[in-house]
């Protein structure tokens, strides 16, 4: 469970042009710097936007990564719905927090 680092990676790719450039040039090198589970790594590499949502990434962070990966707005929303159909409900984070 490393949602913090998963979100940090996506936040930094969005907010720091240097990290984004490094990510585009040497993705695995950047990923090695974060404590991520195999499932999280797979979701980033996919990219599996739906799984990232299910893993608990905040939409205000995820929407930027989806846009960077070429997802138009409706495609982004649909990817999250598909993620829930395939992987089940959101497991952690803000959208899980007060649901139980």
């Amino acid at each position: 469970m490393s949602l913090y680092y998963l979100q940090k990676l996506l936040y930094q790719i969005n907010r720091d042009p240097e990290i984004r450039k490094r990510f585009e040039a040497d993705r695995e090198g950047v990923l090695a710097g974060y404590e991520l589970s195999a499932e999280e790594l797979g979701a980033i590499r996919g990219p599996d936007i739906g799984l990232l949502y299910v893993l608990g990434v905040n939409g205000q962070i995820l929407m930027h990564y989806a846009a960077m990966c070429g997802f138009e707005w409706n495609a982004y929303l649909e990817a999250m719905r598909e993620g829930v159909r395939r992987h089940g409900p959101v497991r952690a984070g803000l959208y899980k927090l007060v649901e139980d």
Partner: protein
Amino acid sequence: MPLVFAGVCSHAPGITNRPERAEARQRERLYAGFERLRLAIEAARPDALVIVAAEHFANFFMNNMPAFAMGMAEHYEGPIEDEKWLGIPHARVPGNRDLSLRLVSRVMQEVDVAYAEEWKLDHGIMVPLHFLTPRWDLPIVPANINCQGPPLTPLHRAYAFGRALRSACDEAPERLALLGTGGISHWPATPNSGKINEAWDREFLARWAENRRDALLSYTDAETYRDGGQGGFEIRTFITVAGAAQGSTGEIWCYEPIPVFAVGCTIGIIKSL
């Protein structure tokens, strides 16, 4: 100078990035509301605008998340979003470091606010400014409240932040305007984007307009999430303005639930400060 203006408005990125998808009459009523708000702010002749927004990870992350923060720079850059996506060209918005320093120092007497000498503007501030100061000619003091990274800022502290901001603004020699910007019920950037709980919104806005402190502070986060979605946590920005206007009532000039903008688009003002 006593605070010269206080109001609230929505800031959803859909308002500028996909306007053509909204029902035309609703969109026009919203845009007319923004224009009325712009004229009201201009008529108050402010020297600067204090704009209280919701943090969306433009400046802060969970490695160091302040409950409240205020910008303290000579200028601010935005938007952080792709300018074509947002529909707002990149701009440099003037600040006033000296004014920020004095306001932050005064607010700190009552509320432990963080300050930032570097601050990026996201849609949460750029969308309102796009309508309200389209020439980017009014200095701003940005502020934000943690509405996304739990544990969230408690509502009663958001109200206290408003009280502290009011004292700071009243004691400054400048003519200052205050604007809170946030959504009411909404589920932005999630599969439920476009869902709006109009009944919940109208109840909240009634409490806000009557400035009923206890009623405004009675929402638990669990209730807000259930009825208003995670975007509903942004009621904190409205509550801060209510705190700043304690003893005064407000008026809702516009409420248009526009699903493609993902929020009940709202414009409200405090009638007499």
